[in-house]
């Protein structure tokens, strides 16, 4: 039933208010949590539909009812800013002449297969959503992003940054933004935004280590080392092992990521520091991985990720990680000592406050 006075056009009558769902979600009511994630997703879809200008929604919505095949589609923007034009390589196609197209195709395959084979998640939405990757976007575009439906990669300026698609941890990072969107829908602002960034960094490095068969001790724990330009070899965008030490150069200045709550960034920029304060949980993940192995740590984090809610802060995150770990201890997937390890790791970075 519609409520009295409902405009019908922007009907909200059937949607439980988000704050109620969030309270329920905190009490671990699984159904409410799923409903919350779904309603956010639906609302976004509805907004998109109302303004649908390029048929993008029809394309992505087509598979929502049935299982998709998580097929890769790599598009070549050819220096322009239009998405999904010039399909350069789709699932099953032979190699392209363009190494960047192939890198996007291959690395997204590694990420997809890791989620499927190791974590038993069927693509971004767990329903086999296709993976859309746009490469050669813009003119010297020094960025990569997830726009809510697909991934976009620039070529970099060729001095400070090389091509953003040419990196497994960058593609793992972007694709994980999609997974987060379809699970907790962590808000991209403040502490929940920093957790969103953290999870993307976690799976970016965990997948890279898995692919390269590295242990936590062998790995460099850097994000974006492969996309630094020729003048900045050895630098990176973030270090999970030693946040605040990844770069120092003319364009970016000096890395200001904190590795402890006492240096928490309280400024406004970057949505209140989503790429800055992620250093705090990043360091905790590194510490846990050094004790129990990156594979076990990633498994715990992946389980925690599915019990998170959109506005979770650092303190709530630790509790959820510990609960996820406890379940895995009970099922025999993780050793009992993991709980203490996690508590100590977060304590070392000042969480909970």
């Amino acid at each position, binding site marked *: 039933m519609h409520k009295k006075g409902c405009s019908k056009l922007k009907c909200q009558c059937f949607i439980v208010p988000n704050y109620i769902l969030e309270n329920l979600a905190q009490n671990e009511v699984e159904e409410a949590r799923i409903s919350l994630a779904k309603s956010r997703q639906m609302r976004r879809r509805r907004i998109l539909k109302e303004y649908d200008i390029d048929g993008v929604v029809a394309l992505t919505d087509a598979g929502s009812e049935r299982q998709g095949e998580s097929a890769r589609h790599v598009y070549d923007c050819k220096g322009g800013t239009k998405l999904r034009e010039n399909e350069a390589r789709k699932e099953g196609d032979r190699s392209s002449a363009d190494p960047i197209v192939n890198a996007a195709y291959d690395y997204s395959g590694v990420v997809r297969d890791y989620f499927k084979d190791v974590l038993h998640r069927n693509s971004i939405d767990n329903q086999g959503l296709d993976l859309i990757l746009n490469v050669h976007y813009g003119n010297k575009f020094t*960025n990569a992003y997830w726009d809510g439906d697909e991934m976009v990669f620039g070529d970099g300026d060729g001095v400070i940054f090389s091509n953003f698609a040419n990196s497994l941890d960058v593609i793992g990072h972007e694709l994980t933004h999609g997974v987060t969107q379809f699970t907790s829908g962590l808000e991209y602002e403040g502490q929940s935004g920093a957790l969103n960034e953290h999870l*993307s960094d976690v799976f970016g490095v965990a997948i890279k280590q898995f692919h390269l068969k590295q242990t936590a001790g062998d790995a460099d724990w850097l994000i974006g080392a492969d996309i630094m330009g020729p003048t900045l070899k050895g630098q990176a*965008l973030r270090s999970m092992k030693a946040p605040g030490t990844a770069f120092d150069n003319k364009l970016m200045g000096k890395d200001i990521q904190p590795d402890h709550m006492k240096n928490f960034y309280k400024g406004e920029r970057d949505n209140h520091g989503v790429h800055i304060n992620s250093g705090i949980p990043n360091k905790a993940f590194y510490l846990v991985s050094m004790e129990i192995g990156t594979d076990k740590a990633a498994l715990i984090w992946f389980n925690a990720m599915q019990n998170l809610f959109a506005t979770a802060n650092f303190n709530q995150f630790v509790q959820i990680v510990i609960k996820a770990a406890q379940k895995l201890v009970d099922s025999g997937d993780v050793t009992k000592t993991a709980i203490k390890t996690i508590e100590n790791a977060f304590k070392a970075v000042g969480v909970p406050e």
Partner: protein
Amino acid sequence: MHIKFSCIGGFANLDLNFGIDTDELPKEKYEELQNLMKHADLHNAAQSKMVKTQGFDSFSYQLDIADEKKKQSFSFTDTTAPEEVRPLLDYLRNLAIEIKLAE
């Protein structure tokens, strides 16, 4: 005309900004900028944005334009910027990088 531009955030969390008087630009650059501004049609662009979510890892752009008569401000992200504005943002971002590296 005075232009103030900033490009903040993104995957690499950049902090780029500059302010220029457009008549200080070399003639070629000035003309290119004029063309991009015309193409961007910022008046309409401001109204047609917010089609998409802000995006994850997308840059936030702020553009202030002032002449003798008026001052206008625009903000976009990589995902909310309309198609026509994107080449202008590309141009201004690259100019910002150029200026920062020359400092």
